[in-house]
């Protein structure tokens, strides 16, 4: 049905065009602008159906490929295509945008049209990041994405938003500039002006020496490590989350963090496998610090959003751990290493998708409370369950998913990564598994202080339970969280060939 349609281009440009339309409709035609935004978001969601149905999950090759010359003198192409690694993340992006538009429907009072437009444009750019196969195209989407997020936090953010936006922008920008240097270096290594290539897939097979790989890897580590974020370049995230409006936090946690993980999968692992193997100890150390240290730091938070932001960092620690842990298995045993790599990579991917659902849901829950009480301080709450029982049920469910309870999506990825790290080293698994205790401690303590107990003050006593709109948003996420937890195999099926090919490629090395 959709054969011949440039589906990926549509997915990228439709929301961007939509964003412009919404801006044009403007603040005076607010309802129309909002409706148009919802329409575009839902339309994009419908576009995902042929994308998913026509996706062939028996091959690792790129699909839905579009390739047109763009800047011919530098061999830069408008080159799109997806494999099993990009597809789940694109679907996640599209879904989250719909939820964000619905969640902001009544809540945003100031400049609604601009708010919606920013998210639509953001959506297009993020899909662009996941679909780009030309590294310059990727880089442009990657950087352009900062602008709408900068605006979202800067305009609809909290009191301290200027500090947060600057920190967010400088952190991520500093990281990615070095990546551009690395990309240009590889272009010149592949031939430069005499037939050199910016294609990501060509980079995968570019022969690079150990030293070259080392420096390129460091550039990637910085660029994507900031995005993930890895310890110690993580401190922009709590500030950005705290100041961002609910929708901004949702997109930030659910999608933009995933771009870091995706970058490692698409660039660092296949392009610099030997450097990855060489530096694996460092990456694992940073990941485990993220799990253990950040787990403790989350325990000390008094601001709900900060707590969830820190828990995001801890959960993303599992992603980087899963991605790299296979390199820590003795390299003489290729069978063992590839089993570890499969577990680790699949686990990291599942963890990313699951974290998309769970962190989005947690931030939406905080948003629901914030819209009513205009406070994020844990100590302002207590006994919310008395006045908002339906909301409390949702929040308990998502908190359990956050604590990695089996049967929810939060368990699947962590479980696989712990299994994978056990194969590398008992103590890696030991430290990673402390999340079972730490995650439960900070999440349940939050629940205890916010939801349970007697009604803490009159304002809690006057709370209204969630309405239909909020119920719909949280209900949809709840279904996703449980479905993925009870049966993750369909997601694994989509990714399997691509992940297997990546594993073979990265374990073979380039030297």
């Amino acid at each position: 049905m959709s054969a011949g349609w440039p589906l990926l281009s549509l997915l990228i440009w439709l929301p961007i065009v939509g964003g412009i339309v919404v801006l044009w409709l403007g603040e005076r035609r607010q309802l129309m602008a909002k409706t148009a935004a919802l329409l575009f978001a839902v339309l994009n969601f419908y576009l995902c159906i042929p994308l998913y149905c026509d996706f062939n999950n028996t091959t690792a090759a790129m699909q839905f490929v579009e390739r047109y010359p763009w800047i011919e003198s530098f061999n830069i192409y408008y080159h799109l295509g997806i494999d099993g690694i990009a597809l789940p993340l694109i679907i996640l992006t599209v879904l989250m945008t719909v939820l964000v538009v619905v969640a902001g429907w009544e809540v945003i009072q100031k400049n609604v049209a601009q708010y919606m437009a920013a998210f639509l444009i953001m959506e297009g750019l993020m899909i662009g990041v996941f679909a780009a196969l030309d590294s310059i195209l990727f880089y442009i989407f990657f950087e352009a994405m900062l602008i709408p997020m900068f605006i979202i936090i800067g305009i609809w953010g909290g009191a301290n938003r200027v500090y947060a936006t600057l920190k967010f922008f400088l952190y991520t920008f500093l990281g990615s500039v070095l990546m551009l240097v690395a990309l240009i270096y590889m272009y010149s290594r592949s031939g430069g002006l005499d037939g050199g290539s910016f294609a990501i897939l060509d980079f995968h097979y570019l022969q690079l020496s150990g030293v070259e790989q080392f420096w390129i890897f460091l550039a990637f580590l910085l660029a994507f490590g900031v995005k993930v974020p890895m310890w110690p370049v993580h401190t922009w995230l709590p500030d950005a989350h705290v100041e961002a409006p609910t929708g901004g936090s949702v997109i930030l946690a659910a999608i933009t963090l995933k771009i870091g993980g995706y970058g490692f999968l698409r660039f660092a692992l296949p392009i610099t496998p030997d450097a990855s193997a060489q530096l694996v100890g460092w990456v694992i150390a940073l990941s485990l610090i993220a799990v253990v240290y950040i787990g403790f730091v989350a325990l000390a938070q008094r601001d709900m959003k900060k707590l969830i932001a820190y828990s995001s960092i801890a959960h993303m620690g599992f992603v980087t751990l899963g991605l790299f842990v296979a390199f820590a298995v003795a390299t003489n045993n290729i069978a063992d290493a590839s089993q570890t790599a499969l577990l680790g990579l699949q686990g990291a991917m599942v963890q990313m998708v699951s974290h998309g659902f769970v962190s989005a849901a947690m931030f939406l829950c905080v948003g629901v409370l914030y819209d009513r009480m205009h406070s994020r301080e844990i100590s302002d709450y207590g006994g919310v369950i008395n006045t908002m029982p339906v909301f409390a049920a949702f929040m308990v469910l998502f908190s359990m998913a956050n604590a990695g309870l089996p049967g929810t999506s939060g368990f699947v990825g962590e479980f696989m990564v712990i299994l994978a790290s056990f194969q590398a080293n008992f103590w890696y698994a030991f430290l990673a598994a402390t999340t079972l205790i730490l995650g439960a401690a900070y999440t349940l303590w939050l629940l205890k202080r916010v939801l349970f107990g007697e009604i803490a003050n009159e304002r809690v006593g006057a709370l209204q339970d969630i309405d239909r709109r909020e119920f719909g948003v949280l209900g949809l996420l709840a279904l996703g969280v449980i479905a993925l937890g009870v049966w993750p195999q369909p997601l694994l099926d989509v990714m399997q060939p691509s992940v297997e090919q990546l594993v073979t490629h990265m374990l073979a090395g380039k030297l």
Partner: protein
Amino acid sequence: MLSMEKIYLAIALSPLAGSLIAGLFCRRLPRAAAHWVTIIGVGIAFGLSVLVLHDVLINKAPVYNQTLYTWAAVGSLVFEIGFLIDGLTAVMITVVTGVSLLVHIYTIGYMHDDPGYNRFFSYISLFTFAMLMLVMSNNFLQLFFGWEAVGLVSYLLIGFWFKRPTAIFANMKAFIVNRVGDFGFLLGIAAIAYYFGSMDYAAVFRQVPDLAGQNIMLFDGVQWSLITVICTLLFIGAMGKSAQVPLHVWLPDSMEGPTPISALIHAATMVTAGVFMVARMSPLFEYSEAALSFVLLIGAATAFFMGLIGIVQNDIKRVVAYSTLSQLGYMTVALGVSAYSVAIFHLMTHAFFKALLFLAAGSVIIGMHHEQDMRKMGGLRKFMPVTYWTCLIGSLALIGFPGFSGFYSKDLLIEAVHYSTIPGAGIAYWAVLSGVFVTALYSFRMLFIAFHGKPRFDQHTREHLHESPWVVTAPLILLAIPSVIIGGLSVELLLFGDYFNSSITVLPEHNVIAPLRDMYHGPFNFILHALGGPAIYLAAAGVFAAWYLYWKNPGLPDTFRQRLQWLYQVLLRKYGFDEFYQFVFAGGSKRLANRLWRTGDVLLVDGLIVNGSAKMVGFCSRIIRHLQTGYLFHYAFAMIIGLLALLSWVVWR
């Protein structure tokens, strides 16, 4: 005739269906509908479980081991959801659904006035589902699923009265302490996935003899047997779930939950999951004497020391709770001496009489208008005869009165320890033997204080004091019957036949059942044989001591208390575990968390590096700004100096 597969599926899913209906529509559904739909769900599960038990026990049905669906497949590792139905499972599902059904009925009376009525029914049905998935599992993944799911429902139910500060503290404590156990459990599962390459019980157990000799190194230079490491890790999980010292601290606090769930979850079923798990893993544990020894000692410590605390408790539910801890210790001791079948046998008899004791305590609590302090009771025998008699039966079963079900399980357990050669069995034997005296003492202390003597409650309570309604007393009676007879009826079938052969593996050198089998010649003979052993006299001495102290001379305990103040304080403080954990772990991690956040994130990363570099840039620019004065002669002067410097460099080079 239904195919067995569908029956197994129906057993697991019908409580889930009931729970979902009652839970999702809990605000719209009338109360009667909520309890009927869940009772029917569990009722179906119970009926079918009996059918399955009959099929396995009488028809000797072959072991059923099938996969339902593939949860996930990664490389060569396949995670599946499936059922294993053998003798062990058949006993467990019957006990679980049976007790659950009675607790459901009892709840109608106990929770009669509670605003969370429908929610409560939804939770206990959900618990039943989770427990069934746990015991019916044929693989480690699903075991962990059920394991954590019962923990979740336990969390929800302990905190059921979410306005009580003590309840919401207790449920968080329970979950986190359990998570400490699960931490070990998950590492054990990860070890199995790595070394055995499978999650399936059968596939793993097949490989055990081959891997028995393998050693691994966790610390440099220290070789540990692989099986010992795995078994110890798995058993840490059991220590959490089955509340063994030192992870027992959550169970007494869990009494903050409504009494029906104390009976169902924190006495009869969930807390025995650890015992079940070790029995299920017998092919693994058999190959590690060190792990068995560890199990044995932990169990013995729990059995003896937790029983002692029971003597000084005044809350009627807490007495029963410490008794549960102690009895779980007994079961664990049985596991440690490789008498897995005896552990399961004691698990079964205990499920009945301990559920009975809890429900009887609950009946007292209803009658006393939610007063749980035994010092404010007394003389209840006249007011609540059914509760009294059933409670007496439960207590007799618990202390091992000859012929009652607890007598068979406990006496055989003690004999099994006696015959064992596992290191530590000698100490354990003394622990379980003196435990018998302690058990009898605290059980009859409770009985005498609450039901005998002069009433110590006020006039108002007395006017409203009456026997509980039939929905409460009927489950008591229905539990009292198996508490008396189930032991004598099933002991030969379960222990001395080949019933557990397909599920439990015992190496010949660990076999303590064989001498028991030689000794055993029918129930009556066994009673006679017991008269020659010490246990029965210790129990009698315990009852006598309780009678003398708490009935004959009620002033005497006070004298003892004053004389042995230090011992009394130690017991009353529960050996200080709570204070220690609260200070070191709960408080310590909070302090550490604050310290890390303040110095790590706020001071070092943000203060020094992020904002520091920004300040650095600002500082430099402030200095450099001075150079840009805007006067032309300043710039000209600078240019001349620069030119001079350049020239001199060129010349002097």
